[in-house]
């Protein structure tokens, strides 16, 4: 469904992404992992059109994304950014409904159908009971689910998430990822999610790309990519994997 071919991005002539190629199929969750500065965020922003690329191709459903205007990619993909912005003075439902923007006219006129989609997204993200609340007054975990609801409302076949659980406590992290997984499996959406927690990548992703210094170091099923040898090499820190526990068949941890 999504094909990225030889994608390169330079910043001040230094390569941030170097010839990255991969494919993503319908209904799959792809995890992007790698150390800080490996290029996870840059890759997501290159795909969604926030930055221009220096070389390569991005094909989505046989359409060359470089040939359409950047903001028109909103019809194909929704993004949950790394640093969430919640503008003050808007209710949750207003913010969620803004996910319909690609389909609305200049004046933002919404229909009953738009409202239904927004309502379903709020139910899927457990934010429906917050609909009338001012979004900027919610807790971090709630706000992040509101942004997720907005992305669901955009109703795109592809979702991009950039470390969406970074500032959440462990319960909100798990709830967030559970909601995401349920929704995308139900709607058969594809997801690219940059994450730091290797165990979560193992648990929630169908495929994983391990990035190192702007290049793909390994790509494939989580069990084949997340190995002691590969992780230790990329993170430059001894990483251990413990196996055979009933609750978590594999557990990754830094050597202490």
């Amino acid at each position, binding site marked *: 469904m999504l094909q990225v071919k030889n994608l390169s991005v330079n910043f001040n002539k230094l390569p941030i992404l170097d010839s990255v190629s991969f494919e993503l199929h319908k209904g799959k969750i792809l995890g992007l992992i790698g150390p800080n500065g490996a290029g996870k965020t840059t890759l997501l*922003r290159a795909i*969604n*059109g*926030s930055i221009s690329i220096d070389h390569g191709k991005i094909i989505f459903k046989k359409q060359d994304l470089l040939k359409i*205007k*950047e*903001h*028109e*990619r*909103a*019809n194909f*993909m*929704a*993004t949950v*950014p790394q640093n969430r*912005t919640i*503008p*003050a*003075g*808007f*209710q949750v*439902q*207003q913010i969620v*409904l*803004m*996910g319909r*923007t*690609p389909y*609305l006219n*200049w*004046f*933002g006129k919404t229909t009953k159908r738009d*409202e239904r989609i*927004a309502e379903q997204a709020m139910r899927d993200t457990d934010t429906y009971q917050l*609909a*009338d609340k*001012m979004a*900027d007054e919610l807790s971090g975990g709630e706000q992040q689910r509101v942004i997720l609801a*907005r992305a669901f409302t*955009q109703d795109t076949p592809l979702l991009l998430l950039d470390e969406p659980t970074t500032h959440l406590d462990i319960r909100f992290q798990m709830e967030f990822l559970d909601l995401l997984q349920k929704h995308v499996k139900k709607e058969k959406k594809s997801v690219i999610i940059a994450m730091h927690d290797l165990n979560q990548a193992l648990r929630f992703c169908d495929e994983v790309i391990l990035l190192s210094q702007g290049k793909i170091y390994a790509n494939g099923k989580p069990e084949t990519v997340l190995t002691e040898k590969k992780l230790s090499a990329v993170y430059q820190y001894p990483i251990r994997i413990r196996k055979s526990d009933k609750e978590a068949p594999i557990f990754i941890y830094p050597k202490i």
Partner: protein
Amino acid sequence: MNKRSPAKWIILLAIGVVLAALLSIVLGSVNIPLQDVFAILKSRVVSHTTLTDIQDKFTSILFDLRIPRTILVLLVGAALATSGGAYQGLFQNPLADPYLIGVASGAGLGSIIAMTIQWPRDLLGYFTVPISAFIGALLAVMLVYSLAKTGKTVHNTTLILAGVAVSSLSNALTSFLLLNAGGELRRAIVWMMGGSTMIGWKPVITAAPFILLGIGLLCSMGYQLNVLQFGDEEAQQMGVPVKKVRLWIILAASLTTAAAVAFAGTIAFVGLVVPHILRRLVGNDYRLLLPLSALGGAIFLVLSDILARMLLAPQEIPVGVITILFGAPFFLFILRSTKRKVW
């Protein structure tokens, strides 16, 4: 879905505009009783009802002075408040006011340049002033924006500082030009302080198309401004053609400001005070906030104008002095109360 009732607020403020306008027509150096106003209006509309002698005298005061002035002040107030609200949304800065970010001063400089080249006498001459003001406003806002921009972000304080710098520069140039303006100096200075010294219908007729067009354009961009509150990058990811929208907002807001400044001088703080109060009342949905700002700005400036006429009557204070007396403490209050974040 939205539980707030936009219609209620629009009606409420529209009634406020009518009341303020009536008050402005009635009050002045000569007070015209309300029943006389209605009698005169009725004689004009229905025609041939006889008027008393005193009502005859009032007629010319009403139609040559009070009504055109009131309409001009309504338009200018609406223009400044709407463009203020739009600039605040565009720069995501609660302190962006056409005056504080230098746009008004740029428009003022543009006006003065046009005025010194040819002091406007005919209708065509009148148009050179707003057009020149529009160019001045655009140059100022672009200069301020490029000065305040570091990389991809525009810092709140830097924007205001750049605005103050550009403002001072334009004001200095304006003063320099005024010194060479000769006989019209007093009128020009009063104009600069925001006194609506322009009398009669000509300024109303010339200003109205620009102001109404500008306000209409701005109000049509309410939804785009809403999405823009997420920042440029996210707005684009949500399908907003950010560059195009930004350009349109700058053009429309500058046009609106310029038209107001060209005919009423630089009047500060209307664009700051009015949207700020309304935000507290109705939230930040620009589809509602901008039309309400237009109405609220009209009320605010008409009331200020009444005070300007009445306080030291028969002498008139420039209305810009009144808005500063209200607005400056308010500005400081907003600066101080950043802890309680309403923005």
